[in-house]
Structures are given as C-alpha cells and as structure tokens.
C-alpha cells in the first residue's frame, strides 16, 4: 500500500509484527443488545489486585501485569527513566537470565510486550491456553526481583537511545503531537516533562537507580493482574496464589500532586522541524475530571467531532475545505479514554499545505465546536452506537489484551474492574444539555493549546 503510513508510536519494548495486530473479536456470552463481560475480582493478602475473565473463543490466554507507575511521576533528574526501566524488566530476574524471559514466552508459542504510559507500566503475554501456569510463574518471578548487570543497563541505554532516534529525532513530525503536546499544554512538571527523556538523562542512569525504582514501585500492592481467555478460574486462582501470594507488600511513597491548574488563556506555540516539508497543527483542550458526567460527555463529543468520516471535523476540514486528507484525534494519544488517571487533553491534529493559514483551520474548528450547542438526542444516539462498536473492538481486540488492559486499569485506578460493564450506561446518561455545558466549559478557546509545526527543510 502506498497510502499514508501511520506512525502510531508508543513507548513499547518490542516491535510486534503488525500482521498479528488486526482487530479480533471473541467473547463467550451474549444477549440481545447489552453485552456483559464475566469478571471475577479479588485481592491477595499482599494487596495484588486480580481480575479474571473467561473467553473460550480461541485456545489462548492473555496475562497482563500492570504497575501503578507511569512516566508522569519518574524522578525529576531522570527524565525517561520509567520507560528505560520498563526495558530493564526484560533483562533478567533471579530465575530467568538475559533473553530467557523472551525465549520462554516465544518458545512456548506466545507473544509478549511491555509499554510505559502516563499512569502505568504494563507487561503482557498471549500464550497457548495450556501455558497459563508458565506465564504466571515468569511474571511472578520478575515481580520478586531483578538480577541485572551494568552491561545489561548499558545495552538498553543504547537500545532506548536508538528508539528515541527512530521515533523522534530522525523522523519528520517525530514526537508530534503525542510527545510534544503534554510538554506545551501542561504546567505541572509531572505532566509537562519529556517522557522519552533527554539523551543526557538516559546516559546518566545507574544500576542503583534501577534497584531503587524497582524497590519503590514494583510491589504486589502497587500492581494488578488480569487474565483473559480460555482457562479455568480455579486453576488460575491456585497458580496466582502460588506464584504471587508469597511476595511481600512494600510501603509505597506518597503520591505527588499531579493536578493541573484551570487554564484561563489560549496558548500558541510553534515548533521548527528540519525534517518536515509541510506544516502541521495540533490543538488540545484540557479534559474534565475522569469518570465525571462531563468526562463521559467528552467521550461522545470526541465521537461527534473527530471519530470517523461522518464526524464534524472530517466533513469540514477534509471534505468541504480540502485542507487535509485526514484528521487524527482523541482522548489520550498513548492509549484510549479509559486507560489513564490524571490530567489529560482531548486533541486533534492534521498536516496541511503552506498556503492555508492556521487561523482558517481554527475557524472551522470553532465552528464545529459551536455546532455542538445544537446537539439533538438523535445525534447522541449515533455517537453512542459508534462508541459501543468501538468498545466491542477494544474488549475483543488483540487476543484478549484489549480486555485485559481495561480490567487491569480499572482494578488499579478504581478498584472496580466491573466498570467495564457499566460504561455503556454512563454514555447513555449523557443529555444534549450536558453536551452543551461540557462544550462551553471545556472547549473554550481559553482552555486550549495550539502547536504548529513549522517545516524548515534545508533546500537540497
């Protein structure tokens, strides 16, 4: 295909074959219109939160361990450390030396990965169903402790620096807007620093930093475990107890204050990009508090404004004005509207031609936002259908990892993985009046940050 190559970049450990990543749908029970996910939720004595969800569509099982430590709250003199640390979790534990974790999973017919996000770091495997115990043993082993040498650390510093180069430094629009926007839109350091890290900071990481970070954050009482797929509940419970039950809880440090002040003034920035040849623009608005009625309203506003070819911004910026061929957008560019906990923006971005002024783009955006004041119940019904369809994709997606992600996050952040089954109702509660009120407060121009990419390619 010679269409636009989408660089959807995440802070991932391993490059997965994209041929495996197409959407998948599986589930074990269904009723007419509402769809209930079976969930068994409990906690071990050491505080580990465990969510189990059976799905016997395919003979596979997904295991996901989520730690309540994202890149927001990494040490101030060690930008990029949370992500570098994620790489270290693959470098060796007491019973699995370097490359042995990866080989264990792959040679048992599984795939694996890890990633670092705003508010968590995750590690997951998808295995043939009969290898569940093997995966639980391996995750339990690395939660117990790491065994890492200076060589391992130096090696991964090299790998991570190459990751930053291939995704950001040597790429047109590298880091735009997913890595850039938080740095421009936010005021609080925890939300506004470079999450990939300065190359200098990456170089200065030491083994003792790795040790300290592990001891501080990688404990069962700061983690959740989700298992999704073809397994028996009693087997899973037995193995979870066996491989995680004996791990000690730790005393967790107080959470820093990551709150953002209310934004009162529009902010506008320009970023020069020597590798880009066309300008690009991103606009971001601070989101309402997670799980509030306005948050669900923003979920539907996102659908109406930018999701799909029937959305207002697609119809105006692409179809009618021809400013661009596509508009990206959404809540949480490093995940989705469900898997974060803290300040967030709703954002959209597009690449356009130099003969178009950014203000004419923003004029169309403001017009679309203004139209939200005329939202009807019918418009909302359409948005709910779209979000429900997307939710099913998430719940069935990526061989069970999509569902495991939501279960693990809702366990970790809300102590309530059953929220999965309540989301649809929360969206249905949104009224046209709430849409109007939410748009007025949160889509005010004074609540937005604009970032423009100024192409500065040297003439050849």
């Amino acid at each position, binding site marked *: 295909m010679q269409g*636009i190559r989408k660089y959807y970049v995440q802070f991932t450990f391993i490059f997965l074959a994209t*041929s495996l990543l197409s959407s*998948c749908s599986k589930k074990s029970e269904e009723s007419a219109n509402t769809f209930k996910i079976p969930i068994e939720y409990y906690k071990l004595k050491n505080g580990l939160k465990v969510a189990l969800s059976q799905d016997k569509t395919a003979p596979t099982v997904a295991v996901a361990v989520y730690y309540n430590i994202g890149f927001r709250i990494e040490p101030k003199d060690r930008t990029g450390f949370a992500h570098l640390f994620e790489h270290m979790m693959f470098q060796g534990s007491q019973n699995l030396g370097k490359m042995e974790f990866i080989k264990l999973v792959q040679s048992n017919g599984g795939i694996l990965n890890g990633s670092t996000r705003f508010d968590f770091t995750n590690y997951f495997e998808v295995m043939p169903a009969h290898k569940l*115990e093997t995966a639980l*043993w391996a995750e339990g082993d690395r939660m117990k402790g790491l065994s890492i040498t200076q060589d391992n650390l130096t090696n991964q510093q090299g790998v991570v620096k190459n990751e930053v*180069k*291939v995704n950001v430094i040597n790429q047109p629009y590298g880091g735009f807007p997913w890595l850039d926007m938080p740095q421009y839109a936010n005021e609080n350091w925890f939300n506004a620093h470079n999450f990939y890290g300065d190359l200098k900071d990456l170089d200065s990481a030491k083994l003792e930093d790795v040790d300290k970070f592990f001891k501080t954050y990688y404990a069962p009482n700061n983690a959740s475990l989700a298992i999704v797929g073809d397994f028996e509940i009693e087997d899973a419970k037995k193995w979870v107890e066996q491989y995680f039950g004996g791990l000690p809880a730790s005393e967790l440090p107080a959470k820093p204050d990551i709150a953002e002040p209310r934004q009162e003034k529009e902010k506008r920035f320009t970023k020069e990009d020597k590798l880009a040849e066309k300008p690009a623009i991103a606009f971001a608005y601070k989101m309402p508090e997670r799980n509030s009625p306005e948050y669900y309203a923003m979920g539907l506003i996102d659908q109406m404004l930018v999701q799909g*070819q029937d959305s207002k911004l697609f119809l105006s910026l692409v179809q009618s004005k021809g400013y661009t061929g596509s508009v990206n957008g959404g809540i949480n560019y490093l995940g989705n509207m469900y898997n974060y906990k803290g300040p967030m923006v709703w954002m959209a971005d597009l690449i356009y031609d130099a003969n178009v002024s950014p203000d004419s783009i923003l004029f169309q955006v403001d017009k679309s936002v203004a139209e939200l004041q005329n939202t009807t119940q019918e418009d909302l019904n359409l948005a709910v259908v779209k979000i429900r369809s*997307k939710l099913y994709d998430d719940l069935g997606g990526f061989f069970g990892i999509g569902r495991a992600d939501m279960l693990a996050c809702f366990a970790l952040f809300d102590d309530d993985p059953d929220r999965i089954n309540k989301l649809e109702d929360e969206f249905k509660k949104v009224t046209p009046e709430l849409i109007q009120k939410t748009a007025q407060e949160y889509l005010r121009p004074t609540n937005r940050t604009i970032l423009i990419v100024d192409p500065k390619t040297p003439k050849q």
Partner: protein
Amino acid sequence: MKKNILTILSLVFVFAVVNTNAQKQTPPPGGTPKDFKLPEKQVKTLTNGLRSTLVHYGALPKVDVQLIIKTGNVHEAENEVWLGDLTGLLLKEGTTTMNFKTISKKVAGMGGEVNINTGMDNVTISGSVLSEFAPELIKVIGDIVINPAFPASELERLKSDLKRQLTVQKSVPQSQAQEKFFQIIYKDHPYGRYFPTEAMLNSYTLDMVKGFYSKNFGAKRSVVYVVGKFDDKAVAQAIDETFGKWVAGPEVSYPAATQTRTNEIAVIDRKDAPQTTVMLGLPTIIPKDKDAVALQVTNSLLGGSFSSRITSNLREDKGYTYSPFSTIQNRKGVSIWYEQADVTSKDTGNSLQEIAKEIRKLQNEAPPKAELEGIQRYMAGTFVLQNSNSGGIVNQLNFLDLHGLDDSYLTDRVKNIYAVTPEKVSQMTKDHFKYEDMTLVLVGDKKLLEKQIKQHEAAKKMK
C-alpha cells in the same frame, strides 16, 4: 490425571523457593495443548464469477465485511503511479444515489465506516459494524463498487491530498529506503514503482480514473469475505441481490514480474542523520515452492522474531538498534527476503558485519535442536493467533487465493513447520541467504557511510 501431575510439580517449586541457595528454578511446563481447528468457511460463486466466503467467528456482536478485488497499483502504467489510489479515493466519494455524507452517516449508524485501501495487488473495500447490520453494510459496499458517481467536483481536492501525502512520505527515511530497494529489484515493473512524481499526479483526469476502473474492476476479480457474528440467510441473500447485478468484468490477470538479483549498493544522503536506515535482501522463493515453510522457519530463526539471532545480536547484545526485523515480502508470483533496521550511524558497518556473521554461522553450522524447536513452537503459536481474529482470518484466506494455494497450506501448516530439521535450516541459509548476493540500500549521512561500506565489502568475503 493431569491435575495430579501439576500438583506434584508445584510442590517441587514451592520447595525450591524455600531453599534459596538452590540452583535456578525451571519454569513449569504447563498442561496439555488444547485442540485448535481452523474456523469453517462457506464458499459460493455467483454466475457472474463473484465469489463469497463466510466464516462464523467470535462471540462479540460484530462483523467484518471485506470486498477484495484483484487489482491495485500493479495495474498502473509507467505514467500512472497512484492512479489506483486516486480511483479508490474517488470511489469513496459516493454512488449514483448516495453522496459521501449520506454513506458516512449511514455506516456510522451501523457502528463503523467504509474504508478503501489500494494496495499493490489488491484493492480492498471494507467495514466493521455491529452484527445486525451485516446485510446493510454489504449493500453499501456493493453500491460503492458497482454504481460509483466519480464526482468531478472532488477530483482536484483528492489530487491535492495525494500530493501532500507524497511530500510527507518522501521525507520519511524508511520510505526512501523502500522506494530505492524495490526499484533496484523490480526495475520497470509496477512493483518497482513506489512513488509518482507530482507532475504525474497533476496529469490525472476523471477519464483516466474511469478508465482504470472499467479496465480493472468487476465480479470475476472479486471475493466478498464476511467474518464474525452474522445471520447466514440474510447475509447470503444480501450478497446475491447486491453483487448478482455486477458486470463480470475482466479476468484475473497480473503482469508477470521479473526480479534483478544484484549486489548493488545504493546510498541516499540524509545529512547529519543520527541513524542509518538499512535495507538488505534479495529475491527468494514463492509461497507455492515446496520449501516455502522451511524458508519461513529459517527467516524466523535468523531475523524474523524477537528471539532470532540477528535481533538478539544487533539489539540485545550490541544496542545498535531498536527495531531490527527480517521478513519475506510476497507479491504475485515473486518474493523478496529482506532485513531492515535503523542503526546508530557510526555502527552501520559494524551492524552489517554482524548480520553477515549470523548468516555465515547458520550456513556453516546447523542450529541446535532446542533453538529450532523454540522457533517452531513460536510459529505454531502465532499461527493460532493469526486465525483467532476476523481480520487475520480474512488475511489468511486472501493469501491462499492470491497465491493460488489450496487449503492444505493452512491445514498442514503446523505439521510442515515441525517437519523442518536443523540441517534443512542450514541448507536453506546456504541456498537462499547469500550475503554476497544481497542488494543494499542505506539512507543516512553519506560522509560517514563511505568508509562503513568498506566493512560491508569485507563482510561479503567473510567465510
């Protein structure tokens, strides 16, 4: 019985945890494998030649519909690069009875949208919607492909979009490398034409789009795939009624491609680039070849999986790169193997030498049995995953159809993967991975590369 064995094993492990000075634990092996069957398909051919394949899969109330047409960039003439893409974009603009906005609203109401993708060998018109709308989506897709409006009013806008896309893509180092690499191997064949010129895009008219459409689209070249949860009867009826009316159109016909085997080196200068994008590879055997599975196993062991030798070496040992991978790219009747990696500029030559070393080593020595078995289990496991989602199922079935393979390619696949021996892997490496024959493309800072190419020349002579 199975339970008892597991309990005994677990006791052993509990013991090992207590005895902290004991040697390392061995991972629990797990239970017995569960059965895996390929999902069943229902196949039908209409009188005009259109084929349909229906597969029930999953339990979530969603369905994927894909119309795959055997045409694409492969049918563009030399001065028509991306005319297929423009045709795809214009098809999406509406039918004789529904405009873009009407279609978009309608399909959004089903919980999805229609996408049109122009690929090298296939044009795909697809959507994923809530189950109850499967027949409706089939009708919309049928209307789009059978009754296109090709509105003149949208032509210039879409050409501008393609021009913008061209500029952006040409600035991406990985795209620059691919353009050059395929050009060297496929020369004048459409497979060797990656990008049009802006002048070419400017020259495209509505008549050219209509001509491309009528020459290349029709029932005989098309298969409708419906995968997911859906009502059989309603879906079958919608397919008959919608596609039964379509013209038979042209026969399936792919222009034969020839490949150039050359150890040419091409350098694309990217001043001050902190990394070099490396593409290294050569023509290889096609999926129909009796050794195709052995080639795939060899690729997985050499560079195609995370635990593969080249990836372990370049990334996990040397730290030269983040994302090295090797793959087999199959076009109609021709295939290429290549390794691609973005490596630290100063280590470009070192990286090439390490790749050469890994290839030589595998040529000289059969891999340990345990290593090969690990790779075989990985491939058998990912085969199950590829067939455990709607999109993956369509990909597999279309792969068979495009490359003229029968069902045994899938049904015997696991058996064939395990049949490959260590000696066979070594032999495949000798026969099909000759480093000295490989085409090399480097996108990076030229002034640094000149001396590193000498390391590549030395690697060619490595024994």
